[in-house]
């Protein structure tokens, strides 16, 4: 692989700085994907086992694109190279530790519509006023709480000065708790769970976390400017041991406020 002719000076530096944390501020159209793929290929060429490399992207399209390019560079795509979306990688991790989490192997993933239907059923079973506890609104709050990895108590605390009076938020917190309970009983994850449960697994089972920390000597993250607090937490946990975390992003293009 001839880096000198294929990459510009800065891209080359980004590819070759393999050790320690690296932040690549990549402007629009500056060859971000190119740099990422060359880095993966370079690491492998330097003798790093594909098994020890983890690459995280935001869309499947980006992941597939990158896989194709890596394959072109090194001939074969090693099956033990983990390159995928945050969600996809989390599913991969979760499906190996379902038992520890109290799930069985035939788990399902709920999409938004299904999550909302479940919230609706819970509101019904709690005999709450359908008008007051509008499904979309309740789901919105629950979704936010899950995204932020709040506990039931944290949800109540967060909304204690909210615009609704009485036991409104207390009731929503109850729906929230029930929602999570039912998901688990039904062997189901919603989208937020994919990240949330992975983090939970790592925080509650340090020995499992240690395995993955050992494994992923080199971590690469695309679109770092848009990582959520949960994604950030996950990245930090995984990178803690080897500290070889390479992130690419453009603060100019950050468009998801948390």
């Amino acid at each position, binding site marked *: 692989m001839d880096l000198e002719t294929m990459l510009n000076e*800065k*891209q080359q*530096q*980004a590819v070759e700085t393999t050790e*320690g*944390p*690296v*932040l*690549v*501020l*990549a*402007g*629009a*159209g*500056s*060859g*971000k994907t190119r*740099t990422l793929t060359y880095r993966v290929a370079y690491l492998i060429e330097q003798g790093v086992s594909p098994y020890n490399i983890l690459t995280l992207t*935001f*869309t*499947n*399209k*980006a992941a597939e694109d990158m896989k194709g390019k890596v394959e072109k560079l090194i001939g074969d795509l090693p099956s033990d190279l983990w390159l995928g*979306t945050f969600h996809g990688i989390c*599913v991969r991790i979760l499906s190996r530790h379902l038992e520890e989490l109290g799930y*069985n192997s*035939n*788990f*399902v*993933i*709920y*999409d938004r*519509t*299904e999550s909302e*239907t*479940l919230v609706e*059923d819970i509101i019904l*079973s709690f005999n709450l006023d359908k008008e007051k506890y509008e499904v979309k609104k309740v789901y919105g709050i629950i979704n936010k709480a899950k995204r932020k990895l709040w506990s039931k108590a944290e949800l109540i605390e967060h909304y204690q000065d909210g615009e609704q009076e009485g036991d409104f938020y207390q009731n929503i917190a109850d729906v929230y708790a*029930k929602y999570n309970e*039912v998901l*688990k*009983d*039904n*062997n189901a994850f919603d989208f937020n769970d994919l990240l949330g449960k992975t983090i939970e697994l790592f925080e509650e089972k340090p020995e499992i976390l240690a395995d993955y920390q050992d494994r992923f000597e080199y971590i690469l993250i695309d*679109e*770092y*400017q848009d*990582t959520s607090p949960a994604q*950030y937490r996950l990245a930090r946990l995984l*990178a803690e041991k080897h*500290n070889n*975390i390479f*992130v690419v992003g453009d*603060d*100019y*293009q*950050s*468009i*998801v*406020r948390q």
Partner: protein
Amino acid sequence: MENILNFNQDFKDATVIKLEQNYRCKGNIIQASNAVIANNYSQFEKEAWTERNSGKPVTICEAEDEYSEAQYIVREIDNLVKFGQHSYNDVAILYRSNHQSRVLEDEFIRNQIPYYIVGGLGFYDRKEIKDIISYLKVAINPQDTIALKRIVSTPKRGLGPKTIEKMITHAQEHVPDFNLLTFGEDDQSLGLFDVMEDATEVDGIGKKTARKIKRFHDEIEEFTAIANSDLSIPQQVNRILKKSGYWAMLELEDSDTARNRMENLDEFLSLSKNYYEKDKSRGLEDFLRDLRLLSDQDDMDENNQVKMMTVHAAKGLEFPAVFVAGVEEEIFPHYRNMISGDIEDIEEERRLFYVAMTRASERLFLTYSKQRKKFGEIKEMMGSRFLDEIPIECAIEKIHDGIRYK
């Protein structure tokens, strides 16, 4: 955003490398977008440059109203395709909010320009796709009440939400182990599916309906048998599609909508085939799970169509020609972020606008209307502040006086 700004603090002794050479955009687009983003404070200093020539100037066009704006866009697309050696596939229309697509779509349809909305009602959000997925879920786990409720009345079986409601009420009162919410495999309680076996005792449900319920119950058992069989995933999908009467329902309907749904189901079938052939050890459960992990951009096809999408959905994409429509105060920047009084909110809008601009490699068009209909009333609009931030030397301004419809 904070994550990237704090990377240096979060990870000690980080190496920071800036990639500033832009290989995508022509010089004028870079100059214009650099100038816009330079108005933001909370960011790293960075300046994009390129070895590409400056290209055509960025076109800023003022239109009378939203119809005339759409007309202008259509006309320019025509020009690009006829004289500019571009194809429809090279063109993207970006807007700040989803609802802005409607007027554009009308004009596209009127002029027979093929288009595709990315992240709108995507493939996986379509009714028939959601329906077949629910059928498959029920086949795998008949206790899945959420999926069960979705399929009960498509196709029509003489059973509706009312019947289901009656059964649930009855079961809640009379069946001690009934639990509507949980239906995990290890769950010992009875679910809706179990109650359906015998509905003769349910208040308000006659013998005839009870028989229909029982028939549906047995139908589901057949689905389960298919899901547990050795058939390949596409065969399983196909069988369930036929056995359920879903396919026959569409055939019988014989309308454009129905034909369109059948095409989509066909697409779903080939999708399942591809999935199966990639790795034959995977089952129906894996297929459904992996479907859920796809995102908006993932179903963007490569057909020769103009792509329409919000700026958010355009992240990471690149097109030879980009139109940003509705570049007006209160639209872009969005009203909500204008009135908040928080400078961070305007900076967010500016970053969004920067993303929109830098999706373009060759041609960039920014359009706005002087007036537009909002909540049924005609409202005077003003060009966005972001337009004023673009240096004159890299842009040309145009006025489009289209004829108004109606």
